């Protein structure tokens, strides 16, 4: 695969000068100590090796990040105790002592030789152990990363009824392993790099070589290479630095906490970006449709999955327009309602001192406050806020005559609709736009609603996520009709033989053996001959 080799061949140049390793253990150790001066969590240990105790060695590691047991049991014990039993005077050993140590003494699986002290320091700070040998111009880096981690637990932000309850953790290695467990394909590639001048955060680009869209992969790589920031603490940093249009209220990358969701997207031909120290993975490209899908859509039987998906589309529309339509109809087009209802609405609004827009704005703002307060408060108090807020928003406000009962229903419906959207970032952009839409509905009635809808639509038509139109597959240039099998409804698996066309990848067959062929094979295998 020449393309992939080219893509990842270029190495980023390290701006710092290389500090060569000298042939003197003391000098090397002093250099490391000088650079790491003032850090009391770095452990330095010098010791002598061989039955004559002539050779001076040293190890350096960071306490807490390195696995102490591994260092004690398999490095120090082997070098200090077991090596004494070997006869160092044997001719072969005298000249190849370092090879023997490297290949025969250290019983650890991952060893690296490096000749740059700066690089060694990066390694030490990320949890590896550096072994400095006397009279040798290389350092040995022993992979000893091992720190207390949170165990794999259920993702708190994306729960499903049916499906695995494993979620990502804060450790990149665990996360890649969770993905690898779902894709046992040699074509699954995990390309790792470091981003952040100071933080040196590990970032992994994950993709399946034969299904990925090469243009997207190339763009991801280029944009990640261009990032020059001091620290990356969360995928949000990366997301904001590589997105196509920072002015857009809509997220152009999807984040998820679920390894099954990432695996599913990789099979569809998308690219995942994993960042160390966060349980969230980024998926690109993201389109409006992918942000509205939940992994459960594929686990449930298609009737239920399709029905829930339709419900979700309606809920997104509701969370955007419902209060605006209430304002437009009550203040501009009361004639649209049946006479009885119009009279009832007018009657219930009789005691309300505010115009419809103020009334709606007050209630929606109170709802957003309640939501924000609910997130910030510790869990035990959170439920209290819910009760208080519910009472204030509902009963009390109506009884005090501040809002009409119909408005309370509208607000409650909007809130429920907004929470039914699977992607939080996508839902929150709609929440924001809802307020703009309410303002325009107050000025221009239904025309205002249409006006804002058109502005949003034009914006979405302009928007692209890594070169893929945001409204794919509703816009034709890269898609075919086949893609609609998995949009509003999800057809049964045996109808969806192809991967989504709008992500245009190489290997397009998803399901090769469908039900019909299985049945015929059961009947008689003559066809194969």
């Amino acid at each position, binding site marked *: 695969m020449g393309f992939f080799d080219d893509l990842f061949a270029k190495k980023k140049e390290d701006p710092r000068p290389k500090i060569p390793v000298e042939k003197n253990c003391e000098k090397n150790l002093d250099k490391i100590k000088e650079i790491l001066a003032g850090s009391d969590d770095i452990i330095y240990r010098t010791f002598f090796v061989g039955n004559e105790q002539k050779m001076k060695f040293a190890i350096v590691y960071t306490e807490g990040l390195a696995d102490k047991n591994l260092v004690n049991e398999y490095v120090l014990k082997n070098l200090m105790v077991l090596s004494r039993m070997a006869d160092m005077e044997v001719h072969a050993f005298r000249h190849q002592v370092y090879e023997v140590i490297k290949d025969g003494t250290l019983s650890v699986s991952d060893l690296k030789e490096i000749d740059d002290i700066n690089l060694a320091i990066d390694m030490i700070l990320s949890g590896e152990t550096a072994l400095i040998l006397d009279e040798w111009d290389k350092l040995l880096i022993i992979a000893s990363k091992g720190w207390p981690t949170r165990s794999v637990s259920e993702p708190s932000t994306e729960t499903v009824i049916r499906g695995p309850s494993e979620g990502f953790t804060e450790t990149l290695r665990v996360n890649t392993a969770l993905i690898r467990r779902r894709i046992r394909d040699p074509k699954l590639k995990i390309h790792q790099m470091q981003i952040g001048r100071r933080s040196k955060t590990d970032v992994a680009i994950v993709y399946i070589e034969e299904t990925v869209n090469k243009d997207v992969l190339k763009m991801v790589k280029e944009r990640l290479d261009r990032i020059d920031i001091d620290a990356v603490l969360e995928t949000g940093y990366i997301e904001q630095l590589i997105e196509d249009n920072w002015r857009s209220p809509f997220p152009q990358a999807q984040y998820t906490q679920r390894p099954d969701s990432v695996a599913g997207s990789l099979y569809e031909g998308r690219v995942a970006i994993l960042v160390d120290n966060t349980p969230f993975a980024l998926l690109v490209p993201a389109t409006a449709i992918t942000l509205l899908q939940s992994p459960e859509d594929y686990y449930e039987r298609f009737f239920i999955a399709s029905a829930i998906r339709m419900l979700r589309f309606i809920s997104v529309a509701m969370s955007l327009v419902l209060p605006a339509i209430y304002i437009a109809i009550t203040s501009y087009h009361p004639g649209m309602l049946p006479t009885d209802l119009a009279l009832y609405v007018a009657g219930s609004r009789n005691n309300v001192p505010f115009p419809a827009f103020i009334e709606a704005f007050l209630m929606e703002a109170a709802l957003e406050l309640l939501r924000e307060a609910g997130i910030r408060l510790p869990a035990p108090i959170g439920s209290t806020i819910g009760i208080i807020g519910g009472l204030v928003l509902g009963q009390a406000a109506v009884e005090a005559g501040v809002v009409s009962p119909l408005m309370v229903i509208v607000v409650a419906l909007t809130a429920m609709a907004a929470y039914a959207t699977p992607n939080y970032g996508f839902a929150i952009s709609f929440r924001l736009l809802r307020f703009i839409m309410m303002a325009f509905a107050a000025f221009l009635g239904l025309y205002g609603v*249409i006006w804002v809808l058109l502005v949003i639509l034009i914006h979405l038509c302009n928007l692209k996520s890594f070169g893929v139109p945001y409204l794919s597959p509703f816009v034709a240039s890269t898609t075919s009709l086949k893609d609609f099998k998995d949009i509003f409804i999800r057809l049964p698996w045996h109808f969806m033989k192809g991967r989504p066309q709008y992500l245009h990848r190489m290997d397009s067959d998803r399901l090769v053996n469908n039900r019909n062929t299985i049945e015929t094979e059961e009947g008689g295998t003559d066809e194969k001959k």
Partner: protein
Amino acid sequence: MKRNNDVILSSQLAAILSTTIIGVGILSLPRDVAEGVGPDSWLLILIGSILALIHGLLMYCLVRKFPGETLVEFSQTLLGKVLGKVISFGFCIYLLIFSAVEVRVFGEVTKQYLLFNTPLEVLGITLLILAVYLARSGIEPIARMSEIIFPIATFTAVLIILPLMPELDMSYLKPVLRTPIKKFITTIPAIFFSYVGIEVLLVFSAFVKDPKKIKNGVFLTVGLVTFFYLSITVITITRFGLEETSHMTTPVLELFKTIDIPGAFVENIEAFIMSIWILSVFMTLAVIYYGASLILSRLLGSKEQNYLVLPLMPIIYFLALIPDNVAQLSEYMEKFSLYMGTFYISLVPIALLVISGFKKKKGGNKSA
């Protein structure tokens, strides 16, 4: 950030042309045909559609010879620099006036049916701002918009018309073929002008990925629009009868006013219909606005079209405010479509096609 690379498919071209053609014309179409030919309206629309198809195919024959070129470029090769530029500039003016008409009609109708107290100026300016936004975005977003809006508008329209079915009286379409031919001929211009908008093909053909497929786009456009016109006209006439239809200013809106969806929560859905209609008027405006700005930018030799969009806005706005009232507006519209419309829709493309035919012959003789 990467700019859109300005390529559309023939199906997208069809969506653009259809949304452009269906605009303000549809509101009065049933009245015009009912006035002219009475029960034979459906036949007239079919004849009109054949004319529009022939006309579209003629334009296709013309643009096929100049792939990747707009009217500005090929009129200059065919007519010479000066005359070509004059013709193109005239086309730009034509599109600007056309935009102004759309804006004004939109304002008047919205004021009459949706927002009774909102000033015309506010309605016009808000619609223009929207059109500026889309026209600045370039051809690909316009194509995507039409592709999304056209199905939405058609689907909703069909859905809303369904409850009308039991109220239709087909006897209004009888007797068949009793209209004198003379009347047919005098009404044909009216139906032909309801296909106004198809001439933007002269500009938009330059962006189509596979120029040979423009033909499919033309067929698709005329087919879709004819189906739409035919069903609307037949339904309006069979619902109201000939007399009533020919006396209404905007029979289609009146038609929607009478719809009563059984058991529905919403009673008078004309506001809802108006919203759908706003979508299609907006698309017409955005497309011709974009066409005008594109022609102007090509004439001025500038590569970027989007800088020219905003300066055109006040021109359209003031043009839209010129007529004093609806009566004057329709008078101006009639004159406009009769003179400029005829010139640019039929005369220019046909003349250019004939000239290109001659030039090709000459060239062929030389090489032979």
